[in-house]
């Protein structure tokens, strides 16, 4: 065993070592509990870091520092935020449905955490290796919608009802293209197991890895998946359910204190989970981007990719204004959905065409041409948008 492999597998080894203290009957359970606790701690820490990264990144994009007062360079800001959230008064509207109002944020966080069960964080480091891992992921991630609607309904506020309605419509609409984009990978990989999908991508031709994103259909699929994932996790420019300038804060307007923080955690965990799924499906999971970089531990690569995707989310949030509900729906059903279907065709062709530049050309043309056409004719409320020219008086 070389040193690199030892570092790579150190958590697995540690797990085995710790579990060895437990009686043999309890070992599977102990291993699972240990894994779950680790995942929770790691991803909650990552959540805190993401919030900090987002606030500082947005600040820098806006010509200011961002939080820099709590601890050195403001790195303790998430701690301060957490303390604030805990000690704040928890206000529940009198007319709210108390039980549902309480359950909604819990449900969202639980659902978000369940997603991580099938994510392979490193070589041999998936909590469970389900045969239908991808399916499990999508099944669980739609549970969030239930939580969101519970929150909006139970609050008995018109604004939160609006937010919930928008959230339901949006998340269901975007689940379709998201799933179809993922289907492309499943078609090529021939398996629903996340571990298998990553392993298929972790081989190299020379220095170049066999990531699915490096094919025409994979790249398209990745882009479509990310757009749908942005909408799915209610991030700007698809943050209509929150829509803080229109419907104030949407479905969590009536939440305060730690329940509000739970929504926040749920949102970010969801965002990280979908990013992790995108990495698994298209970006080669834990595999290194170049063959010569394999000395770096696999879990390291996973988190590097994850943070990079999160930065993309933050970048978009710092730049783009928000869409409107009807435009959002149009975009999903009239642009994303046809594109994913076209992409499926391209994937099928890729699978059966002989290896060579012709296959690149055909599949590439098959995604670029519909993109250009659909992008041109995209229907924003029955008309086209264009930059205008203006005239001057005299």
């Amino acid at each position, binding site marked *: 065993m070389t040193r690199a492999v030892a570092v790579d597998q150190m958590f697995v080894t540690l797990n085995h070592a710790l579990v060895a203290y437990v009686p043999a009957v309890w070992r599977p359970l102990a291993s699972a509990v240990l894994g779950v606790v680790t995942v929770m701690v790691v991803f909650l820490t990552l959540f805190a870091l993401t919030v900090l990264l987002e606030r500082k990144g947005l600040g820098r994009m806006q*010509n200011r520092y961002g939080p820099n007062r709590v601890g050195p360079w403001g790195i303790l800001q998430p701690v301060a935020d957490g303390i604030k959230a805990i000690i704040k008064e928890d206000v529940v509207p009198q007319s709210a449905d108390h039980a549902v109002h309480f359950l909604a944020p819990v449900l969202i966080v639980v659902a978000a955490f369940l997603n991580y069960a099938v994510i392979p964080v490193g070589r041999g480091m998936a909590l469970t290796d389900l045969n239908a891992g991808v399916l499990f992921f999508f099944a669980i991630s739609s549970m969030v919608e239930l939580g969101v609607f519970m929150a909006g309904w139970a609050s008995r506020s018109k604004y939160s009802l609006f937010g919930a309605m928008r959230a339901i419509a949006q998340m269901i609409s975007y689940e379709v293209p998201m799933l179809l984009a993922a289907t492309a990978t499943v078609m090529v990989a021939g398996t629903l197991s996340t571990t298998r999908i990553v392993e298929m991508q972790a081989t190299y031709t020379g220095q170049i890895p066999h990531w699915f994103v490096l094919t025409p259909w994979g790249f398209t699929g990745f882009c479509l998946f990310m757009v749908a994932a942005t909408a799915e996790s209610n991030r700007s420019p698809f943050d209509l359910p929150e829509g803080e300038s229109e419907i104030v804060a949407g479905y969590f307007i009536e939440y305060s204190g730690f329940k509000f923080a739970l929504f926040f955690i749920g949102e970010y965990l969801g965002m990280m989970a979908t990013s992790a799924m995108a990495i698994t499906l298209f970006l080669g999971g834990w595999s290194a981007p170049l063959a010569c970089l394999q000395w770096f531990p696999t879990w390291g690569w996973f988190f590097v990719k994850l943070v990079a995707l999160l930065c993309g989310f933050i*970048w*978009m949030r*710092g730049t783009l204004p928000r869409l409107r509900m009807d435009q959002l729906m149009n975009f999903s059903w009239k642009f994303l959905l046809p594109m994913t279907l076209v992409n499926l065709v391209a994937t099928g062709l890729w699978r059966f065409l002989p290896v060579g530049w012709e296959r690149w050309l055909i599949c590439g043309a098959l995604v670029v041409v519909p*993109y250009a056409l659909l992008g041109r004719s995209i229907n924003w409320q029955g008309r086209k948008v264009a930059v205008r020219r203006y005239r001057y008086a005299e």
Partner: protein
Amino acid sequence: MLGRGIVEGMLETARNFLGSYVSRERLTTVQYPEERLAHIENARSFPFLVYDGADWQAGMRCVSCQICEKECPPKCIYIEKSVDKKPDAVGRPQNYPKVFNIDVSVCMSCQICVEVCPFDAIKMDVEYELGAHDRFGGLLLDKQRLSKSNEYYHRIHPTEAAAVDAALAEERAKMQAKQQAAAAAAAAKAAAPVAATPSAAIPSAPATEGKA
């Protein structure tokens, strides 16, 4: 093609993001308690009363003419006139304010009091870190808290203060010349034989004394 404008916008934010690490132009925050903006000479916050010399009571320029009290748009100045008189900045005997209060919580920093003051006695301060716990009394500045020395005035508004000093010096010189002339005239009158009407000389004598 769809997405071009979005990409352009994202490049713009990226430029600002990276720019914030290299250029002050793109990182405009002034970290307030540690850093401060450079003092701008014309800046104004709330009014204060100028005094000459070391003693704020003796040197106070205000003669409690109450013009500022009348002209103040939100009526935040409150003045009570003294009964006795003391010499003012140019040497004329004048009243002084027994009470001079400015309610800074009402003041709207319009500096109309400064404009209308014929004695250059009230000027605008640049102090902006005012805070108090008491809503009624804490920001009600009395005569003593309002008084600041002419040196302080020179420090915060050097150009304006120099002009004011020059004008005051000129007026003071004129005043002294007048007083000297009056004193000389009185002396001449006193020296002259009493043949002239004594009734004319007598009332002028206390007046000269008063002016001196």
